[in-house]
């Protein structure tokens, strides 16, 4: 409608101009990360000096990448496992407390992050999971549950009951039916949930800021944010920009690869008003 109101050329001027504004910060950051800045490892010219600073910063880039990878993988695995079983239960079974549990799961969305993180900090301390990547993953997976459970419930409900029942008639248990028949059918839902969980875990800042006190165990976003204050209060913009590139590339690649699934997640009613 708007496209018809604007003619062909004005449309491309408006849309293209906006596209430039949206792309500019990303392109600039990538460029700046290989550009020279006085007082940094990349004094002048272009090269990977800023990335070398990042490589050697504190516990080292590889350590932080490993931490982030471990946290993201654990969060994705936990989210997928719990929401797969939970979604199956909510879509196909009747059990006492079903509605209450579903409501409680959705209620996680209603409670501010900060309100939960303070008691979680105390609670994880009591469970001896404070300052641990496992504890962090458990918390991050919990924050993913409302969306993941909802998404998996819809996915299971979209599978015709007959499919599962024929498997049960053929002598499968419900676990067998889940593994052999339902799992392939809900795979698109699982991909969407996994992608969301990965992006959330990879990018999260406030949970590690509060729950992780040891810089050896910091995930990448926390490490890059800390890196800014490197070298006696002097700011290393170059290394920070390199850090942003390292943080952003996996997200952008994953999104471009799985774009269809991401958008299908929206379309399938996960965000029904």
């Amino acid at each position, binding site marked *: *409608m708007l*496209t018809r109101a604007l003619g062909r050329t004005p*449309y491309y001027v408006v*849309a293209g101009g*906006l*596209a430039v*504004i*949206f*792309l500019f*910060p*990303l392109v*600039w*950051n990538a460029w700046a990360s290989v550009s020279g800045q006085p007082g940094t490892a990349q004094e002048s010219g272009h090269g990977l000096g800023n990335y070398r600073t990042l490589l050697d910063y504190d516990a080292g880039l590889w350590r932080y990448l490993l931490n982030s990878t471990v946290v993201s993988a654990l969060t994705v695995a936990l989210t997928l496992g*719990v929401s797969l*079983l*939970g979604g*199956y*239960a909510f879509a196909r*079974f*009747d059990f*006492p407390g*079903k509605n209450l549990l579903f409501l*409680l*799961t959705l209620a*996680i969305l*209603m*409670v*501010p*992050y*900060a*309100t*939960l993180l*303070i*008691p*979680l900090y105390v*609670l994880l301390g009591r469970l001896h999971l404070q300052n641990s990547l496992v504890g962090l993953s458990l918390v991050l997976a*919990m924050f993913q*549950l409302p969306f993941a*459970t909802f998404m998996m419930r819809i996915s299971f409900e979209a599978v015709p009951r007959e499919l599962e*029942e024929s498997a*049960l*008639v053929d002598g499968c*248990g*419900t676990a067998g039916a889940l593994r052999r028949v339902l799992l392939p059918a809900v795979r698109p839902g699982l991909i969407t949930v996994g992608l969301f969980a990965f*992006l959330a875990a990879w*990018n*999260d*800042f406030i949970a590690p800021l*509060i729950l992780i006190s040891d810089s050896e165990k910091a995930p990448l976003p926390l490490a890059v*944010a800390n890196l*800014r204050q490197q070298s006696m209060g002097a700011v290393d913009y170059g290394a*920070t920009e390199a850090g*942003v590139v390292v*943080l952003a590339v996996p997200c*952008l690649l994953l*999104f471009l690869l799985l*774009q269809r699934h991401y*958008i299908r997640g929206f379309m399938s009613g996960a*965000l029904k*008003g």
Partner: protein
Amino acid sequence: MQVKAAARTAPPHRSPPERRIRPRRTPARRWTWTSRKAQGLAYAAPTAVFVTVFFVLPLLLVGQMSLSDWPLLTGDRGVNAPENYADAADSTLFWPAVRFTLLYTLLVTAVLLALALLLALLVQEFRPGAGFFRTVYFLPSALGLASASLLFWGLYSPTTGPLSGILESLGLVDDPVSFLGTSTSALLSTVFLIVWKFAGFYMLILLVGLQRIPHEVFEAARMDGASRGQIFRSITLPLLRPSLALCLLLCVTGSLLAFDQFFILTKGGPDNSTVTVVQLIYREAFQRLNLGTAAALSIIVLVVLLLLNVLQFRGLRRADES
């Protein structure tokens, strides 16, 4: 283990044809029914454990903490009600933080929703390039908020950032701009970052809403001779209301809880002029080591947000009915 055994023996009794043949409640069927319940419970058990341990328990704990003296390290944990709440409201930064958070929320919501709607209308119809624009507008949403904030922190930098130079060469400003230096420019710079980061995300929600409007509605209006402005005002906007309401809900809630962007870009400065409520909670808990007061603050935020969400949900439902 019992559940597993039941699962293996139960299935033949549960198939629909069998039910049709033997509609009476035989003992075997009732037993199957209970095992089905048990299986449902078993599949839901991980969710239940997660929700109980990491959500319900912490909620109860934060309630208890808000009523007790709770230093970060060990120490006296006596009852301290209602001092925590009084302390929270007494903090010199409390009302400024509330005011600032509300102002920020208002600004972000207005700009973000207007731009997201424009973007959605731009990429809605098929045209060569529309898919490309859709991807480009969405790209920043794939970034994390902390990464985006760090990116803009460099972009706004007076020494290495390019923005000041660009504005100067365009003749818009005469002197180098200090984007994060004054309270107004720091606020506007943060709003710009957030709009850049989230516009594509809200565009996608609105796009789904737009695609749910049947094409015939537009065609009928066009046949009746409605102008484009009229169609937008009396058809697109009203039919898009549920999606707009959802965006509003997400945007308001997200902005009221703003933290990462200010923590990274401004650290609350200059002169504490950009301290948000969540930052205040963070400071109280982890810098002033006063978990009790921080818990009280969190409870206040929780209650306000719950009330707000209830109000907005009502609006949502009304929008759905109309």
